[in-house]
């Protein structure tokens, strides 16, 4: 197992999930895997905290769930982005880049 992992910044989990789902509907496990793989295991999300986050986002209407089949044929919930979620993703991405640019300006100074 990788030893070098960054803890997740508060609030970024939602953004990561939304971004992940923007690429297509997925179940919870796949979302966790995809985030890990896409960041080369640099970001490992707390799997435990992923589900409450998913439920919260569903409550807010950003994502919707439907029963589907997993790769091994289990019944599993598949999440997809709603139009509301898409709008939320745009807003959060903009906010994120604004934030990182600002932080980079300070951190990047000699």
């Amino acid at each position, binding site marked *: 197992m990788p030893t070098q992992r960054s803890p997740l910044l508060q609030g970024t989990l939602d953004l990561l999930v939304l971004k992940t789902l923007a690429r297509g509907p997925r179940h919870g496990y796949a979302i966790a895997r995809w985030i890990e793989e896409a960041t080369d295991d640099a970001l490992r999300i707390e799997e435990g905290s992923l589900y409450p986050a998913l439920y919260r986002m569903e409550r807010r209407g950003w994502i919707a*769930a439907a029963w589907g089949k997993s790769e091994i044929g289990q019944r*599993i919930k598949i999440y997809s982005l709603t139009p509301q979620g898409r709008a939320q993703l745009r807003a959060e991405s903009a906010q994120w880049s604004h934030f990182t640019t600002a932080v980079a300006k300070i951190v990047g100074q000699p």
Partner: protein
Amino acid sequence: MIPDRLPLHRRLRRAFFPVSPEREIADELRAHIELQTRRYVAEGMSETEARAAARERFGDIERVRAECKDIRDDMETKMERAELRQELRLDVAFTLRTLRRSPLFTTVAVATIALAVGANTAIFSVVNAVLLRSLPYRHADRVEMIWNNYSRTTAAHTAIAIPEYFDLKSQLRAHDMVAAIRTQPSALVGDGGEPERVNAIVVSPNFFELLGASPAIGRTFGGDDGAPSATRVIVLSHALWMRRFGGDPAVIGKTVNLAGLVRTVVGVMPPDVRFPDAPLGFLRERADLWIPTTFENLRADARGNQIAAVVARRSPNVSDARAKADLDAVAAQWRVDYPRRYASENAKEWSLVGVPVRDEMLGAVRRSIVVIAVAVGFVLLIACVNVANLMLARGATRQKELAIRLALGAGRARLIRQLVTESVVLALVGGVIGLLLAWLGVRVLVQLGANELPRIADTSIDATVLLFSLTLSIVTGILVGIVPALQQSSDGTREGLNIRAVGTAGRARGGDRLRLALVAAQVAMALVVLVGAGLLGRTFLALERVRPGFSAHNVLSMQLTVGRPKYDSTYKLVNFYQQLIAKGRTLPGVAQVSAGYPLPMSGDGWSGSYVVNGEPSGPNDPVPHAEYAVTLPGFFQTLRIPLLSGRDFDATDTRDAPLAVIVDELLAKQHWPGQNPIGKELNGDGPGAPWWRVVGVVGHVYRAGPQSEGEPQLYLPYTQNIQTTLSIVARGKGSATALVQPLRTAIRSLDPDLPIARLRPMSDLVSGAMARQRFNATLLGIFAVTSLLLASVGLYGVMAYVVSQRTREIGIRMALGGQPSAIRWGVLRQGIVVSVAGLAIGMLLSLAAAKAISGLLFGVKAVDLPTYLGIGALLLVVALLASYGPARRATRVDPLLALRD
């Protein structure tokens, strides 16, 4: 049809997640662990190792599960609420659309509800003002009025003598404060305004403290207020303060000339404090101002001179029983101390009674108001039935729509909710209009009951009333909607798509049966209201027929109070009145003029005990009791009270002449049956005092009102019994009102500063004495007519509907040669059966209702056969008329048209 406009993903979730949230979460988390396990196995771990590692990697699965569950539950509730809100919005919008499409139905339904809710709101606002709003006294719950009571069976409450008050004050144990109250009609002059007669109440200095009433400005009484040596002070009512002093706070410390004495204003009470707020025994009018007195100067007064009302405050936490025991103990003490007065044969039913001040003020009105409220409630129910029937009839035309929606999978509950929403919207619209009607109605009611109902002037549409009418509208809406909704939603599938079932001959279908049952209930309720109105109407007529013993025709009355300092001697007082009478006789249009106090049916009263010369007056002998009055010569002639024998008072009854008295026929019969009463002797001052010699006998007069005969009466000559307040009575040759101007001028010419009070035709006093009965009878009469109209409209509507539903069947019968008369009779018979059933139930209800109001009846029994039969017959005739129209129409059905339909 209602489009389902919930967001798509929400609807999908409902459709595709038919599992419980617990299952959903458990399945999802298990799938996750399973997938992770597979992956580890694929990486080369053993099954057991892999599963353990997957679990460990996931973390605290129970905590996650719980957290997810919370969020999911919260989401479910939110979704349900949102869905309900959404549906309600849609239902309301849909309702408004459909109501707009059927304006006739909407208008009739809304108008019916508006009338009923309006009437109920108006009556409720009176109930609220008179009965529900609490008295403006902090200790009201503990304050009681204490009276002498001479009869165990009837509430014959008599005032308290001042020495009795002092005894109560020192002997009551379970009461922590006692105060006495007297009236003193007074002229208020010397403050720059016109002279005005004000109603002054003389009270013990602790009076306001006892009640728990605080002043709006200044102070109430305390310290040595009211003591003979103290500064003379008064407290003003808010009304007088506004009227005379323009609400100027600088009034505190000002002096006013009240009945010849200069008094300093020390406080003003808040607007709602007018003690007595409603008639309390002989205290008839609300106070304009209060004067403190210790009553010390009357401590040694005669115990027979019962001139005061007594209020007492129970100590905290004293039960009814203990308060009563306290009074009984004092009464027992008095029986020992004054056996002749309280332990004689005549006084064997005597006791001291305490009546909570609230009951005392409102007791008499409570029952009539409750009756009126119940009657108006029936009107509402009858109106509800009409609207429900309208909705039923209308629903029948919508069966297809409902059936389609049921078939498309709308739940029955959902349909019911929508139908009830419809009726609630209707009722709310009706309620708003009804509120406007109530606002108008309240003004009429206040006019009608202004003199008779205490505190009715305070009636207004306040928050409580608004809440009442809102609740009433919603309840009405639900009542009106629920029965049709239940019925239609169940009928829908069976009949709706099937277009129409053919009615079978003579037998009502389910829907019709419901309609007919509702109409029968309507007839029953209308009968109850009509019988109530009939009984109260007959009560009123019976009271009008009572011969009161005097004639008020063309008589004008007014009250004068002639006091110090201008009239500081007996001579001046007597002289003033004699001059006035002499002057009055010469006025054009005046037939007779005289004066006396108190006038019959004026609300004023004066009674006391007396002893008869020659009758034993030992400690155990009876102390007879009578109504007193003082009169000037000509009083009996002016009021047409017959002089049965002897003479009227005249100029010979001077101060120095032998004391004279005139008794009424009852008193004469009681003491000297078969003898000539003239020359007999009695007095009211106790044994040993000079006797009064009977000089005449007159007819008995109903003094308090036509309801009760009252006690025996005795009259004293004014010249020998001086007092400052007298009522002038003048009989005109023409109408009483024509005398107002000449008499006023005559009084002004004698004394321009003298205020004239209670200037009104004597006939107003007589009708005023029956005002409450008139109020009851009028209101119930209005409600009865409304009920009758509503019920007949209801019956007509249902019969017409039943006929229209049977058009096909009737057409077939006609085509097969059915006799029109038989068909007509068939319809008519249905109407009669329904009405008779309603009448039968109504009769039973009426009997129970009449028993409940028997206390309000006079001259008519609760089970008054003519009233019941008459009203039953009236209702039956109305029912026949209402069914006859539809029955006739039935025979006009064109068989061909009916069959083609």
